[in-house]
């Protein structure tokens, strides 16, 4: 590939492998150098030929895969039209990708961090986990799911964090696996001013990283604010262009695709729409 490749032009990729994570979640592995070099939190615009184009976070391929140089992955939850088309793809099928787009989760001087993810919001956190591991950052990750059969990435998280001190906490809403409740309930126990779980070794953090349903992230933001913890949250908005010209992804005066997707607590505090409303395909504001 030429060095000065235009990241905005669609690159055709062939699916190498598909991993079944849960009955409704799959990981698609393919080769694309630019995607393999994506920074934690960046996303691709993924073209399903004659189907859809969707923003998708870049996942890390399994390090045990042989021949995974230049490999990248997508992890998809089967939801509506577009994601189902992607979910039903097979090895050998063709996709188009452009990007990677967006800013990245920053580690900075942080030494002990907390990651809170729900559903496919865990995807960018896995790429972050890989980097935290190589920087030897003490990491706690909370994986939130509705029920036992929807839990994924528990083994992946342990593997990605293998060289650093870490703890993987799983929560299920129905209590069928791990701790009962929401991911944010587990977070509250960890950070709640140190009041509860004072004995837990990871009771204090330098930063909380989060991605998932916006109402979950709002709760994470509120909990972090009450414990005076910095936050980095990756926001989702409806995207068409991914490059800052169509405005469909706007929140306040920010274009999530180009200025974001990751915002810190100070930025989030100025966003009146955060956790309250988003714009639909036509651009109308709709409450969550």
């Amino acid at each position: 590939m030429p060095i000065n490749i235009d990241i905005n032009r669609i690159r055709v990729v062939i699916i190498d492998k598909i991993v079944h994570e849960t009955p409704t979640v799959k990981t698609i592995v393919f080769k694309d150098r630019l995607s393999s070099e994506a920074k934690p939190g960046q996303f691709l615009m993924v073209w399903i030929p004659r189907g859809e184009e969707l923003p998708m976070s870049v996942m890390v391929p399994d390090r045990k895969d042989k021949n995974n140089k230049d490999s990248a992955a997508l992890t998809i939850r089967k939801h509506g039209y577009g994601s189902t088309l992607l979910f039903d793809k097979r090895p050998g099928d063709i996709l188009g990708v452009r990007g990677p787009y967006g800013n990245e989760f920053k580690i900075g001087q942080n030494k002990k961090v907390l990651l809170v993810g729900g559903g496919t919001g865990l995807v960018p956190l896995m790429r972050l986990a890989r980097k935290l591991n190589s920087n030897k950052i003490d990491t706690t990750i909370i994986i939130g799911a509705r029920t036992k059969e929807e839990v994924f990435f528990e083994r992946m998280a342990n593997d990605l964090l293998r060289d650093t001190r870490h703890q993987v906490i799983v929560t299920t809403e129905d209590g069928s696996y791990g701790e009962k409740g929401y991911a944010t309930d587990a977070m509250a126990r960890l950070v709640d001013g140190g009041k509860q779980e004072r004995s837990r070794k990871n009771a204090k953090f330098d930063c909380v990283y989060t991605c998932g349903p916006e109402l979950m992230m709002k709760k994470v933001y509120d909990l972090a604010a009450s414990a005076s913890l910095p936050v980095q949250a990756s926001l989702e908005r409806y995207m068409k262009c991914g490059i800052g010209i169509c405005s469909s992804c706007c929140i306040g005066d920010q274009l999530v695709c180009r200025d974001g997707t990751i915002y810190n607590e100070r930025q989030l505090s100025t966003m009146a729409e955060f956790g309250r409303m988003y714009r639909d395909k036509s651009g109308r504001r709709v409450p969550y």
Partner: protein
Amino acid sequence: MAKSKANSKAGRTTNERTVQPDDPALAVTVAGLHLRNPTMLASGILGISQDIFARLYRAGAGAIVSKSISIEPIEGYRNPTIVSLGSNSYLNAVGLANPGAEAFSKEIAPSRGIPIIVSLVGSSDKEFPPMVQKFDALGNVIGYEVNLSCPHVAKMGMEVGDDPEMVSRIVKAIKAGTRKPVIIKVGIGAADVVKIAKVAKESGADAITAINTIRAMTINIETGMPVLSNRIGGLSGAAIKPAAVRCVYEISKAGIPVIGCGGITTWEDAVEFILAGASAVQIGSAIGNRWIDVFAEIGAGIKKYLERKGMKNVMEISGLAHKY
């Protein structure tokens, strides 16, 4: 390429300049509107949010043209709706997605001193007056642009703009409902663009914006498939610039005030349009590559050019190419 590193602070990005003091050399008058500089935001680019308009105005835009607004909300086509072709050129078939006149009038109702030109789209003359009624009293609204040239939506845009009879009826219907300037946006369709511009002017339009995107398509050769979900869309950016310059030149030669649009990426492009006869310019696709600093960059470039040529104001160079 995205300059994502530089985008850190909420509210503004670090590489964005805040508004320079208004420079008299750049002030222009078009369609009776006094603008602090000739660089306007083109319709459909970052065009639905008042907070974004405020940011673009801070970044240096002379005026903002909104996304084309229809009487009812439109969801638009399925993605892919915007395809980058490289070389600062794009293909889009967004399908006129917009929040509709009711929601958009609420969006821009708080008066924030931003000069907004509301772009309107509809399929017959009947649809425009009720929209004008919703917008006309709003303090931010300085005029209207009428999209008679979108090349990829049935019964709207170009399908209307190709019919001189309908163009005339629409212009008259809108003019009857407002004292604000009405600008007609034309493009390259089946009808002669100069003829449509003349019909619009004779029916009362205050100026013409030329041009909209040009009907086009792109096929991915590995799959053999058209990329846009709508298959056919509109070409914008550098690829259409010479075609746009030609339209501006011919319409302006016919004595009609023109706002130039199509592929303007640098100050040199803007100057070329103004020499062809444009009184102001609109910038759309270039935001994708140059980001929103493009307004201030183009303004500064025009200013230097004027100094070098010994001109006091940008209007002095408008149409200079007509002499030759």
